[in-house]
């Protein structure tokens, strides 16, 4: 598998809310989005299986988002992975690896224009030792308490892509 090739994509409607403090389902011009608050940390979960042709190079998650109303400021996203291999993790409780943060990305000066943030996971512990062919969950969170997260109002995720680093 070549670096940069797509391993999976998620839309807003693929998101599964956790028990509390979850991103809110919404639409914008008929585009499904997930709204993440500016002061309370909220998360969403995506589930998939890593393709068999994944080559072990680590993964990079691209997050496309818009500001609900802001035209300035930046957003910081965090991502964490939970391996769900057979005979492995007890799925009765969460077991996500250490969260990895994207760099702060400034929102576009037009609130309806998309922005792209990137979260990088090196192979191994950062990916909860996930390997090709295994199921996993990806947790995405906005990090409103991070000093780099300065944007007022909600940030709306509309697409997530997983690719090999």
């Amino acid at each position: 598998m070549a670096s940069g090739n797509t391993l999976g994509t998620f839309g807003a409607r693929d998101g599964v809310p956790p028990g509390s403090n979850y991103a809110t389902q919404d639409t914008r011009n008929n585009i499904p989005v997930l709204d993440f608050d500016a002061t309370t940390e909220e998360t969403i979960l995506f589930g998939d299986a890593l393709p068999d042709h994944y080559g072990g190079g680590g993964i990079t998650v691209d997050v496309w988002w818009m500001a609900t109303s802001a035209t300035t400021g930046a957003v910081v996203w965090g991502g964490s992975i939970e391996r769900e291999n057979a005979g492995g993790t007890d799925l009765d409780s969460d077991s996500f690896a250490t969260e990895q943060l994207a760099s702060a990305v400034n929102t576009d000066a037009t609130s309806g224009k998309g922005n792209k943030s990137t979260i990088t996971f090196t192979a191994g512990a950062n990916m909860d030792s996930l390997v090709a062919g295994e199921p996993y969950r990806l947790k995405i969170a906005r990090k409103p308490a991070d000093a780099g997260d300065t944007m007022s109002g909600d940030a709306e995720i509309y697409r997530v892509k997983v690719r090999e680093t």
Partner: protein
Amino acid sequence: MAALTDADRAELHADFMRRMDMQTFGSCPLTKSELRAAVDAMDAWIVANAASLNTAIPQPARGALNGAQKAMLFSAVVERRYVKGA
């Protein structure tokens, strides 16, 4: 009159951002910290000018309305003046 507590100001700040997102006031050209500075300054201004505002209310309203009722009336006047039709 005491200023709002930091927790109250933070809650107001968060609630206001949610209102901005849900209502059609237009886009928000401020960062979180810039908006919070505006919250703090407005609260400080109200503290500094509360007595003057109270004096401006004619009788019998000044004596008959309680603090919460005067606050609601003040809010309604400001909203009608600056928000209606905005």
